[in-house]
């Protein structure tokens, strides 16, 4: 369990998240991709706190902020998916060719 190993694992999770967010058609699957990206970022941040910053208490706050970002993303993402499904009956990105409602 070294710095490099955790960095590579975090980068792998982040890369899979990038692939998912760019390639999936379903809105909820895109949200899953975004959450995987945040997952990798949190792993890297926790590693930096534990192995590079020497465990200063302020270091964990970055992970707390990332968790807040993830919760906000999930809440607003679900709200937008619900709203757009009600108005347009759209559940994949291809059904939203134009922005005008």
């Amino acid at each position, binding site marked *: 369990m070294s710095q490099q190993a955790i*960095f590579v694992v975090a980068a792998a999770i982040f890369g899979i998240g990038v692939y998912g967010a*760019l390639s999936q058609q379903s809105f909820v699957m895109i949200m899953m991709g975004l959450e995987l990206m945040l997952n990798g970022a949190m792993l890297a941040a926790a590693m930096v706190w534990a192995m590079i910053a020497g465990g200063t208490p302020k270091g964990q706050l970055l992970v707390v902020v990332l968790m807040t970002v993830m919760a906000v993303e999930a809440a*607003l993402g679900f*709200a937008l998916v619900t709203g757009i499904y*009600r108005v347009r009956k759209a559940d994949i990105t291809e059904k939203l060719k134009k922005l005008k409602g």
Partner: protein
Amino acid sequence: MIVDVVFWFLAVLAVFSAWRVFRTDSMVRAAYWLLISFVGVGFIMVMLKAEFLGVILILMMGGEMTIMAVFMVMFMMNPAGLNPMIMVHQNRAAMAAGFGSFGLLSAVGLFARFPASVVPPRAQATAELGTELLGDSMLVFQTAGVTLLAAMIGAVALVSVRGRFGRADEGSDAPEQQPAAAAAAAPGPTVSDATAAAEPAPDVAGEDMPADHAHGDAR
């Protein structure tokens, strides 16, 4: 030694289940694969002595993935994975972006030289985080709380403008019945259907009603 074995087990589990998220036929299973990936990362955080963050990550994602599975069942086609499913666009470009970001970020991790300053083994990380959150860094904590509150209000506002049976300011009527305002406006049997259909509804129906009803009525 045992630490390394456990770490690599969790790391392979997290990466493998992250990969399975986009390769399974069932969207509900995809949500639970994502949960497994988060659990792996959460336990790695616990091993890194960030116990509080790791456990709270697992708890939070357990709830969120359950909600996500419910969303999948509600909205998506093929939630049970009975048919093969590949719903992707620009697959090659996305692959390239994924591998590219993996390569770049892991190159940073492998070749950059960071100072090695490990958490002292007897550190009380959770207690220190608590004092920090309610002490010097209370502003960060409060800002996160207010941001979450704003997100909740925003989410409710985004979805509740239109209720189940029409706009919120119309009152609630079952789908077959006319809204109270429209029923009062229609004078009854004297008006033929043709004229009623040809004319736009008079004053009561309001400004943007016809357009909204066009897609709104099927709930």
